[in-house]
């Protein structure tokens, strides 16, 4: 059984993760994004419908992504793509997330050299 990362921990990180994927892949559709996240995280992170679509639609409303509709296998597929503004924003968001991860790592690493009480 793979250990999944809890939704609570993921909450704020999903948006930058989705933006990073879009930045690297030009354009993607919903299912593709969930599959990519699951594969890259080796099954530890699974994006549910309920987490993914609010984010994608919010990004669209904020002008960070645009959509294209295409007919694939007898149904309409909606592709998401970063706008120039979105590309800039995604770099900011990814840096922020990296900084957060680094800080978390520092916090979680046991560091006996720093005494809490020196007097």
């Amino acid at each position, binding site marked *: 059984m793979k250990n999944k990362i809890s939704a609570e921990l993921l909450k704020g990180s999903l948006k930058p993760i989705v933006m990073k994927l879009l930045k690297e892949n030009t354009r993607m559709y919903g299912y593709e994004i*969930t599959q990519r996240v699951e594969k890259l995280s080796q099954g530890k992170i699974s994006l549910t419908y309920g987490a993914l679509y*609010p984010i994608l639609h919010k990004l669209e409303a904020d002008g960070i992504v645009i959509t294209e509709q295409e007919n694939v296998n007898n149904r309409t597929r909606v592709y998401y793509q970063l706008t120039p503004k979105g590309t800039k924003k995604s770099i900011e968001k990814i840096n922020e997330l990296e900084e957060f991860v680094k800080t978390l790592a520092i916090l979680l690493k046991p560091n006996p050299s720093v005494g809490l009480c020196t007097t």
Partner: protein
Amino acid sequence: MYHLSPDEISLVSKRLKADEINYSHLFDDLLDHVCCDIEGYINRGMSYQEASEKTYKQIGLNGLKEIQEATIFYVKLNLIVMKKLMNVLAVVGTSLLVFGFFFKAMHWPGGSMLFFLGSLTLFLGFFPTALLGIRKELKLGFFSKEFAVYVVGFIALFVSGAAILFSMMHWPGARYLIVTSWVLLIVFFFPMLFYRIIKSGKNKIVNVSLALFSFAFMGFLIVSSYNNNTNVYKLVEVYDDNETIEFYKRNIDVLEESGLIRQKEITAFTNSLNAIESMIEGYKKLYLDDKENLFQATIDYMHYGKLNNEHDNGFQQLKGLLNNYKMQAESLAHKNVELQKLISDKLSTSDKNYPHLGPTSWERRFFWIKFGKESLYINLNKLLKDVYMVHYEILRVQDVKDTPEL
């Protein structure tokens, strides 16, 4: 690689429709996603039935609807907060206005303050928030032409609101604000609005008739304020003066009833006030009975610089009464500098020299057509208000002076 057949896709589509998924392109998003999931399971060896059951199980009961709700909520979160704020501001602003009117009607103190705060809440709080809300909901750019119409409308509304507030509070400049708001509405707002409506082509008949109706209504208000007796701003002016007079009367009653004033000295003073009041009230009644004639007299006066005999005598008499009253007031005010200043300010009957009119007599000042046909009525009312103000201030000082020191 298995792909769902059109029939199988339509089964999924039916389910989405049953769940009323219709927000933006969420239907297409979910249809494709569910189909992909089912295909994925089928490719791993499941039957269509098993695959779709597993997919729906993952989504959960009501899942599709909840996804739509979550999406709408997340996208419109700012808008929802904004709407709540708008509601609060609207309720607070209008209740302050209503209470302000109520207080004013009951002649309780603080009415003007409530009115002022209510206008402030609406004009600085509610309307700007509403403007931004409209922009967000209609997804208009800050510099788009559609949004410009709303901005101009808002500015016109803001300026006319300020005009009403200024005129109620007797601050200078109200008239310029009124004219500015009219110019904004007629020269900018309505032409822009018509242009946008005709160009957009949505619900043309309804929109055009609504806009025309409001344009006509505006025009009616503006024209009527020049030619008719229903000028809103003038009514406000008269109402406010009457209210102030009532306020002083009540306070004077309270002072007299307190028994702290030596009645003997005051009696003559009060009689003079009553004489002035009955004369002014007489004129006001005359004015209401015979508006046209009196207005003609006003015009004559402006043209020939002289009243007809009847009115001339009347004004000379009023001037005499006022001068008499003024003398009494000055003697009662003693050496109180502030009171002396108030008296000479409010009760002056001397001629004044105005740059654009030359020397102007006291009588003539009553006939300035500042407020149209009602000028004389309003100016007389203002004089009465000033007299009452002086009267009250003097009695108040008498009251303090005659209080035995402890």
